[in-house]
């Protein structure tokens, strides 16, 4: 009995952790390359969800509402939101990179508020049903049940992460990204187009957030203008746990936070009402005791 509950929570934790990891990746990549805490990142997840929903409602007439349709919506949402991320970087962050840190943080907050309240105005604050029909099939392993949706979701997230890891470690742009995160000025001297590398970073990070947003919409069945706020904060926590700036760290941190949360609800006195308090306390404790996270490098920069 207890093992059934624990295994079920393990599965829930992995599903939750996949979402956190996908969003945390964008945080960490942007932070690594431009040293900016992109507050708007959580909102890109939300916008991604709505973009996926829009594509789905357009194409559902021809391809139905199952997983293939969701996959197409997800890809298109990733591309669209990827470009949105690039535009945000060009318009709002690029002119600010030389300004004091406070200015760019407030600008990032302003961008996040514009996206959030734009969605509020468009949806009038209502929950929007996502409308995907994913079926209820799954695997029965004795008392444990794993739904097909959970498997597809975690599989897709893993695929995206492996893809990203290959991109960063094997391709020329990936190498340029790693170089820019070490020393931007030197890269410019070496003939690397730093602006384009930054654009690619924002494109990928925003795209991953959009992928998570569409999948979350399909999996949980509804969208809300405020849904990016909490996951933005959680994904940041995940990125910090793993070590901000580190791509494997973000994946690990996302998984750890997802598992901590799903097992945390089993602890007597924690329960689901205290779930978020629990994760934010983890964030504060990690920052106090190990600010570099599990896989991060310590850096002697304070601004």
């Amino acid at each position, binding site marked *: 009995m207890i093992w059934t509950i624990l295994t079920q929570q393990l599965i829930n934790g992995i599903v939750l952790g996949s979402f956190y990891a996908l969003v945390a990746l964008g945080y960490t990549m942007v932070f690594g390359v431009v040293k900016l805490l992109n507050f708007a990142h959580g909102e890109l997840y939300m916008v991604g969800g709505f973009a996926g929903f829009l594509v789905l409602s357009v194409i559902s007439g021809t391809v139905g509402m199952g997983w293939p349709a969701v996959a197409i919506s997800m890809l298109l949402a990733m591309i669209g939101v990827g470009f949105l991320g690039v535009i945000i970087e060009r318009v*709002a962050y690029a002119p600010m990179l030389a300004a004091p840190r406070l*200015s760019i943080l407030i600008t990032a907050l302003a961008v996040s508020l514009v996206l959030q309240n734009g969605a509020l*105005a468009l949806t009038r604050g209502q929950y929007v049903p996502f409308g995907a029909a994913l079926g209820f099939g799954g695997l029965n392993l004795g008392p444990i049940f794993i739904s097909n949706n959970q498997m597809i979701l975690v599989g897709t997230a893993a695929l995206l992460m492996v893809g990203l890891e290959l991109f960063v470690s094997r391709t020329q742009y990936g190498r340029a990204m790693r170089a820019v995160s070490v020393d931007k000025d030197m890269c410019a001297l070496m003939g690397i187009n730093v602006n384009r590398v930054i654009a690619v970073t924002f494109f990928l990070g925003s795209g991953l957030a959009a992928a998570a947003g569409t999948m979350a919409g399909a999996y949980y069945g509804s969208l809300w203008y405020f849904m990016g706020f909490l996951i933005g904060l959680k994904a940041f926590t995940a990125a910090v746990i793993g070590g901000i700036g580190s791509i494997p760290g973000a994946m690990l941190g996302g998984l750890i936070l997802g598992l901590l949360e799903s097992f945390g609800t089993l602890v007597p006195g924690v329960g689901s009402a205290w779930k978020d*308090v629990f994760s934010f306390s983890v964030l504060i404790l990690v920052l106090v005791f190990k*600010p570099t996270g599990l896989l991060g490098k310590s850096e002697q920069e304070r601004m």
Partner: protein
Amino acid sequence: MIVRSPATSPMGRLQAVWDDKRLRYPLVAVIFALMAIAPHVLGPYATVILTNALLYVVLCLGLNIVVGYAGLLDLGYAAFFAVGAYTIGIVHHVLGLDFWLTLPLAVLAAAAAGIIIGSPTLRLRSDYLAIVTLGFGEIVRLSARNLQITGGASGISGIEQPWLFGWHISSPLDFYYVFCVLAVFAVIASLRLADSRLGRAWLYVRHDEDAAEAMGIDRVKVKLAAYVTGAIFGAIGGAFFAVNLSAISPESFSFRQSVLVLMAVVLGGMGKIPGVILGAFIVILGPELLRDLGDMRLLVFAVGLLLIMLFRPSGIWPRSR
């Protein structure tokens, strides 16, 4: 010290008037006179709105110490506002201690909370402080929502309004004048702090942290002082907010509240007292004027905030330093 900005724009001209010492004192007298008669001229509805604007002046001046003076981003300022309000709600209302004795407790509670959150995080990059304060704000709101003693989601209601030397502060007009006094105190405290040794240390840390430290300023201690001072302003605002409304609930202390206060500070002009006051009035009176826009109101403010940051990062009130 004061460099007069070219008086071309209307705001520039207004600031020129303000910067002229001969005109400033008559102007202050006029402002006081207007504050005194405003509720009698504008009627009861406007009095309530103005009281709210004055509360925001106190909160914004408090946050201004953190953001404008010390250059730190606090995204959970509503937490201190909540600590003040809930201390009154619990100690004054539930346990029955007199309001004026509870007020110092509220200040102490907020200062303690500021130290607990600030001392570990102020050592780190300023980005971390921003996100930790965001998390802290949510922790406080969710705790207020989940705990028994804070009244859960419905909060605490029926908080007794205070007596002051036989004067029962109870009507909206009474509270309007109380908040007038609070706002004036907040302005005086902000002015005095800016000119103090600590205020100059904040200025130094904001401009160049490393140079400040080389000059013997304890960076962490100075930032912590700003953070705690801001917390105290917030708690005092929250305490009077609680007795004014006589009911508090967790949703008054949401992220949105923190953001509104921050918006007011940034819109008006970080670090500049007249600007911050102007920002507080814009944020409170704006929605009253834009009532027809409904859900679009916050969007308008958010776009305004973005435009200010991109095109006029020093805010509406021109810089004079």
